[in-house]
């Protein structure tokens, strides 16, 4: 113990941490995720292929003006296409895909890393991903375009701009999601935000149709002017510099690059700010409001007013709990809102003639030719869409489903109760959709046709999704970040959804055929027949799938339990 304590390690011996370490760490984590999980590798490969598909499409779009020798379109493609890219990177992670949380900043909280090291490192790691690669491939089209229009120099400048643009995209997505994730630490705010985003997401589809209609009738010269203005904003600046060279405005290049660089710097600064609070993880849970004291006994509290009719037994308890969950669980509530928004917009679009839907001087005009058949088809879509929400109904529960397993709830009872609880919300919603549609079309006598088709397809969908939810369940992540998603589950989810939607639609086709063949009689028959068909199908589905569930309860529990 005679060692003098003053001999400290010289500070220089601490080796610097470079972004390279973060990139290697990310690759290692990704690699370990694949280990022994064949299906994950398969999903990853599918992801790459999908990415390449979109990349190729984007490349063609960006390169086409160059091949066609159309500088005007090239400017528009670069400014608008690039702008949409940036906007997409900004918003899509919030709404649909979630952020890649392979490297969670919170895990670095205890390491002695400066903020600068951490941000550059995480930024570098974020660049290593399939979407970034796909975007890079797509925007290479701009380089080709610029080179064809303005020669080699323009091409080189465009390449520089494109790289800067991709950096901008990634920085934007990271900064925004990180800022949101911090803001949304409190559960209440998070639930609210998830719902708001769901509304935005649900509105994207209809909005797109309107924009397309607007583009068709718009004035091209004015659009080029707008594109040039966009080219001077951070959204368009990096993408348009190649074309500036081609058009002989070389002086614009350094200015636009400066705009881009400043934006990236600002975004990274913002990110590093929010990163710090994300790492500290000071859960600023909203102070519990002084809620009103509960009234009545425990049982009375469990049952919401909407299911006051239910008997106070096992079935009633299941229905009541599910009803509470459809409202209190933000993920579920977001689904309900999507159904409501899409359920009204899609039929209106289809029946008012999507093709003839145009924005002209006289405002919206409806052309096209609505008919009971067309109406039934669009209703089919809505009914199927509503029921597909249940495709992973056990995944919503996660490991909490263990309570039902321990209590030994019979499968048929379980499925019937879940269908009933969901219908408490959806059936009134479907009724409103039918009313609105028949009202908008000015054909109130078609209400029965609409409601019948809706109920039939919804019921059939419930039956099929009963099976899917038992056999194809998957776990949803339990994380503080509402936008995080398990890698690959997005693809698995869409596959299942597609499968169940095709099946349900096929099973509900008789309603469309009847609408076509039976003529006016169907106006009266549609509602009772459709309701009977739907209820019968749902009950049969619960009966058959319940049997499967009885045999698979523990297996189902382990598939919906998040790993870790």
């Amino acid at each position, binding site marked *: *113990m005679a*060692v003098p*304590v003053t001999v400290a390690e010289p500070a220089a011996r601490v080796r610097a941490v470079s972004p390279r370490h973060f990139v290697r760490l990310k690759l290692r984590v990704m690699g370990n995720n694949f280990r*022994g999980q064949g299906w994950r590798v398969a999903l990853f490969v599918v992801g790459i292929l999908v990415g390449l598909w979109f990349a190729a499409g984007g490349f063609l779009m960006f390169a086409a003006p160059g091949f066609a020798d159309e500088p005007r379109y090239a400017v528009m493609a670069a400014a608008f296409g690039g702008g949409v890219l940036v906007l997409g990177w900004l918003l899509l992670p919030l709404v649909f895909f979630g952020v890649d949380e392979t490297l969670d900043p919170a895990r670095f909280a205890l390491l002695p890393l400066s903020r600068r090291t951490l941000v550059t490192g995480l930024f570098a790691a974020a660049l290593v991903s399939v979407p970034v690669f796909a975007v890079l491939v797509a925007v290479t089209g701009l380089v080709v375009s610029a080179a064809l229009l303005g020669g080699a120099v323009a091409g080189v400048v465009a390449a520089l701009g494109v790289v800067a643009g991709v950096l901008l995209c990634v920085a934007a997505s990271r900064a925004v999601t990180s800022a949101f994730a911090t803001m949304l630490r409190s*559960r209440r705010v998070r639930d609210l935000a998830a719902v708001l985003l769901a509304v935005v997401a649900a509105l994207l589809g209809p909005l797109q149709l309107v924009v397309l209609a607007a583009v068709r009738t718009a004035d091209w010269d004015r659009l080029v002017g707008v594109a040039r203005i966009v080219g001077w904003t951070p959204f368009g600046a990096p993408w348009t510099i190649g074309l500036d060279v081609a058009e002989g405005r070389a002086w614009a290049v350094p200015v636009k690059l400066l705009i881009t660089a400043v934006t990236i710097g600002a975004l990274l600064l913002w990110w590093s700010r929010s990163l710090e609070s994300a790492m500290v993880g000071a859960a600023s*849970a909203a102070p*519990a409001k002084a*809620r*009103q*004291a*509960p009234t009545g*006994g*425990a*049982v*009375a*509290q*469990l049952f919401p007013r909407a299911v006051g009719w239910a008997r*106070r*037994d*096992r079935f*009633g*308890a*299941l229905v*009541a*709990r599910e009803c*509470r*969950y459809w409202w*209190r*669980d933000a993920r579920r509530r977001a689904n309900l809102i999507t159904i409501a928004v899409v359920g009204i917009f899609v039929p209106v679009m289809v029946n008012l003639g999507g093709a003839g839907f145009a924005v002209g001087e006289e405002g919206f005009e409806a052309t096209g030719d609505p008919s009971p058949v067309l109406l039934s088809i669009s209703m089919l879509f809505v009914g199927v869409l509503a029921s597909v929400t249940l495709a992973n109904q056990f995944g919503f*529960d*996660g*490991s*909490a489903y*263990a*309570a*039902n*397993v*321990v*209590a*030994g*709830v019979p499968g048929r009872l379980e499925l019937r109760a879940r269908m009933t609880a969901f219908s408490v919300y959806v059936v009134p919603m479907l009724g409103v959709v039918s009313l609105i549609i028949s009202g908008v079309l000015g054909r109130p006598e078609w209400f029965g046709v609409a409601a019948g088709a809706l109920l039939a397809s919804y019921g059939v969908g419930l039956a099929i999704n009963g099976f899917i939810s038992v056999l194809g369940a998957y776990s949803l992540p*339990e994380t503080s970040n509402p936008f995080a998603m398990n890698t690959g589950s997005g693809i698995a989810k869409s596959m299942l959804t597609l499968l169940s939607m095709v099946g349900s639609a096929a099973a509900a086709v008789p309603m469309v055929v009847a609408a076509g063949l039976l003529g006016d009689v169907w106006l009266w028959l549609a509602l009772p027949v459709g309701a009977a068909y739907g209820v019968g199908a749902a009950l049969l589905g619960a009966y058959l799938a319940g049997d499967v569930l009885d045999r698979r309860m*523990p*297996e189902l*529990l*382990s598939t919906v*339990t998040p790993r870790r």
Partner: protein
Amino acid sequence: MTGEHPALALRGLAKQFDGKVAVAGVDLAVPAGSFYGLLGPNGAGKTTTLSMAVGLLRPDHGNAWVLGHDVWGDPVEAKRLLGVMPDGVRLFDRLSGAELLAYHGLLRGMDPAVVDQRAAELLDVLALTDAGRTLVVDYSAGMKKKIGLACALLHGPRLLVLDEPFEAVDPVSAALIRDILHRYVVGGGTVVFSSHVMEVVERLCSHVAILAEGTIKRVGTLAEVRGDRSLEDVFVEVVGGRTATGEELAWLSR
């Protein structure tokens, strides 16, 4: 009625996950009326064993009986006699405490009036009445354990299986939980719980089993297993592993 059968009997329970053996053949007989502690280090297979014992996880081999009822062959009767508090499992936490209890009670087929009365009593005793309409998701860790215990107790099971009931619980709540469990056993119930906290086990249990690497290493009454040493010494000896440092780590002292 509980005379001839052990409260919980496990025979040859085994489970593999992706080729890795988690539990390699566990035999156990828990006498009715005993307070049984299942000890083991982290990763010994305690949770896996208990999950298979109560019907939450299908075993690769072996079987489990609750008071003579086959858990996997006659689940309805076995589960009726069983109260479970799983560890690391979420409750239906978007319900308030009272709502959660009502749900569990009705799910067990109980009379609503009885559910109301027992729920009010349990919430009162466990000092959860003040939480009012707060959702369970916003409860503290100790409150979550307490409401989980209340859910397991509500239907008056004959056998209570608890996975890590004292994990992350403050001393006051722990004392409360201990007292409730003690009364339950005195009243003729049987408790099986897992833990790696020696003091709790030594204080509460009449019987102990030490599980390590997926097999039972020691089993018997507390006195039999402990002998004249402390339970901790026995545990460390059975489980193996290093408990003291040698020449390394010299740089820790300066």
